[in-house]
């Protein structure tokens, strides 16, 4: 009996040592739920084709919080989709600037978008683009003879027409219960103004350095205050939904697909939800930019990098990680990925049907005519998009007037550093 046990023990020890030596584990951490199954499929294929490497996907719903705990306790995934400026500053990511195989296949502007301003290097690679703007109901517009607005006055005029001619329809549906949505409005509209007037690069620098002369958040006639006043006016005139503070994105989808809302602001990620709720909407959804609302400005549209991957600077499996990413980035897989995600690929050699043809064409048109801006990645660490959104909630609840809002925003921004 003893002998058998000893043999078994020795055997298991050997096996575990062997497998430990043989298998390189690559941990892949993601917060993206929409593509989990697709990626698992790709991972399985890769694992099968590469004996000795085992890639494991970890999905966490609240990825950005979990990653902070992981960093804080020294455990870092090999590959991750979470990317924040503060992590870059702490040197958490591997320098990917010389992965020319990848950069050469991506659109040229992608390398710029992925560049960290402080060091001039790239610490992540993004495979897709995502856009955000106004989704509008083409049927309603056609019926009322409207065209998407390019200035704020036109925009208000459109909303007013809709309200007068179709009293049952909400002109602009804002789902203000979800703070991130309001935070996005801030990043697209007032920040959008800053980004176009200062230029993308200068604006990023101004934000990183908290250059208040350039940012001018608290000014009474600045981007923030005017935006706040515009919102308050819309609210007063009933041009947005009355229950803006309690409406959710589900409400918005439902209202839009049943023709009870004429337009709403969101990104491409919302498209699949709309089509799932009502497949007939496919040819009725239009896409428009955010109209210019400050003097001497132009309409903007969000065109930002999406689906980024970074490698940990302290990873012991860098080669395996890169091999996995190589496989993930091949044209076939990226086509599937684009179509699953519903956003266009940034790879020049990938041709995916990520949206209904007419819609995709209109999006392309908007991208060409409006100023392209990105997300505000240079927010202070202690003042997130959600925090900004909550300030807007306070605004809509009547806590602030426009000027008070601008001042409060500036204060919160400064304190966030």
């Amino acid at each position, binding site marked *: 009996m003893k002998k058998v046990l000893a043999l078994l023990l020795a055997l298991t020890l050997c096996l575990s040592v062997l497998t430990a030596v043989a298998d390189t584990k690559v941990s892949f951490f993601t917060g993206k*739920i929409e593509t989990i*199954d697709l990626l698992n499929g790709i991972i399985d294929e890769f694992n099968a084709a590469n004996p000795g490497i085992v890639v494991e996907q970890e999905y966490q*719903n609240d990825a950005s919080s979990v990653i902070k*705990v992981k960093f*804080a306790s020294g*455990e870092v995934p090999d590959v991750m989709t979470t990317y924040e400026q503060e992590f870059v500053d702490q040197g958490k990511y591997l320098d990917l600037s010389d992965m020319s195989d990848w950069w050469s296949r991506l659109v040229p502007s992608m390398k710029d978008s992925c560049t960290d301003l402080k060091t001039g290097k790239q610490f992540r690679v993004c495979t897709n683009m995502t856009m955000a703007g106004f989704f509008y109901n083409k049927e309603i517009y056609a019926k009322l003879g409207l065209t998407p607005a390019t200035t704020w006055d036109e925009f208000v005029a459109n909303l007013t027409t809709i309200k007068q001619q179709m009293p049952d329809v909400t002109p602009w549906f804002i789902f203000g219960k979800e703070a991130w949505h309001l935070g996005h409005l801030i990043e697209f509209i007032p920040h959008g103004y800053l980004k176009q007037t200062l230029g993308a690069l200068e604006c990023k620098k101004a934000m990183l350095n908290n250059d208040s002369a350039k940012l001018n958040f608290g000014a009474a006639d600045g981007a923030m205050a005017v935006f706040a006043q515009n919102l308050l006016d819309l609210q007063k005139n009933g041009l947005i939904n009355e229950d803006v503070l309690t409406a959710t994105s589900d409400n918005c989808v439902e209202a839009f697909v049943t023709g009870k809302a004429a337009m709403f602001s969101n990104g491409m990620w*919302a498209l699949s*939800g709309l089509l799932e709720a009502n497949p007939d909407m496919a040819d009725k959804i239009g896409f428009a930019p955010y109209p210019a609302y400050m003097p001497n400005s132009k309409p903007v549209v969000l065109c930002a990098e999406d689906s980024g991957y970074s490698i940990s600077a302290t990873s012991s499996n860098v080669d395996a990680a890169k091999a996995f990413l190589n496989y993930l980035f091949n044209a076939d897989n990226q086509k599937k990925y684009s179509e699953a995600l519903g956003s266009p690929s940034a790879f020049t050699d990938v041709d995916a049907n990520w949206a209904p043809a007419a819609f995709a064409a209109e999006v392309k048109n908007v991208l060409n005519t409006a100023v392209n801006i990105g997300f505000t990645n240079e927010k202070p660490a202690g003042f997130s998009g959600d925090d900004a959104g909550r300030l807007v909630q306070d605004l809509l609840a009547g806590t602030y007037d426009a000027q008070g809002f601008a001042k409060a925003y500036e204060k919160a921004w400064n304190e966030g550093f």
Partner: protein
Amino acid sequence: MKEIWFFKTVRILLLMLICAMCIIPFYVLLVLSLNAPSRVFYEGNMFIPTFAWGNYADAWAKSKIGTAMINSAVITFGTLALTILFGGMAGYAIARRNTPMNKAIFSLLIGCMMIPGIINTVPLYTLMRQLGAINTLWGMVLVCSTLCLPSAVFIYTTFVRSLPRELDEAAEVDGCTGFKAFWRIIFPVLKPATASFVILNGFGVWNNYAQAVFFLQSREKQNIPQALSVFFQQFGGAKWHLMSATAVIAIVPVVVIFLVFQRQFIEGLTDGAVKG
């Protein structure tokens, strides 16, 4: 006689009202789970869903709820077993042998019950990492046991204190030593406390999300709330129909167990009335 009849009716009516109130969320959950995604909720009769049974198959596959349920079960069972044992022993010791050390232990545990969990997260995560306990079920059991322990000790101590000393004396007469006295004589009498503790904390462990997020990572080890979170999107609502189908799947075994073991629970709650 008339009076009693009147009160009884009022009582029953009140209880029926309360039951109705408690059932509504489940009814809603059920209806949601049987609606197709393209069903606009408020048109037509909203009390009757479209009976999209396919949601259940879909939800099962996408959320890996089967594995999650097993994980949750293992974690819950392990945690309860560990805390009942340690908590019961501690409650007995503290209530019956009120030494300064035991007094201190009691105060420590109760005091720590009031400390918000967040303080612990980062250092605990580091510790568990060093033990190799991250992403293991036994690691999660340890974490959850630690969280439930103060409550267990509190409940057991309070109940043991209310037990008459005759019990201990009876044990001594039979020649039982400390642990045996505890296990054979005292513990069975503690059934109300055990039942209360299980009912109170069991579900907390079953539904634990705050700790699971950090200590359970791979899909194979994730528990039920994590499996459910799969349907919450980052920028947008949830896939209601799938999420509620998953929730229903997860609730059914729990309710069944609750119903099946109800008698034990009831007996547990009613036992221990030691008549003088």
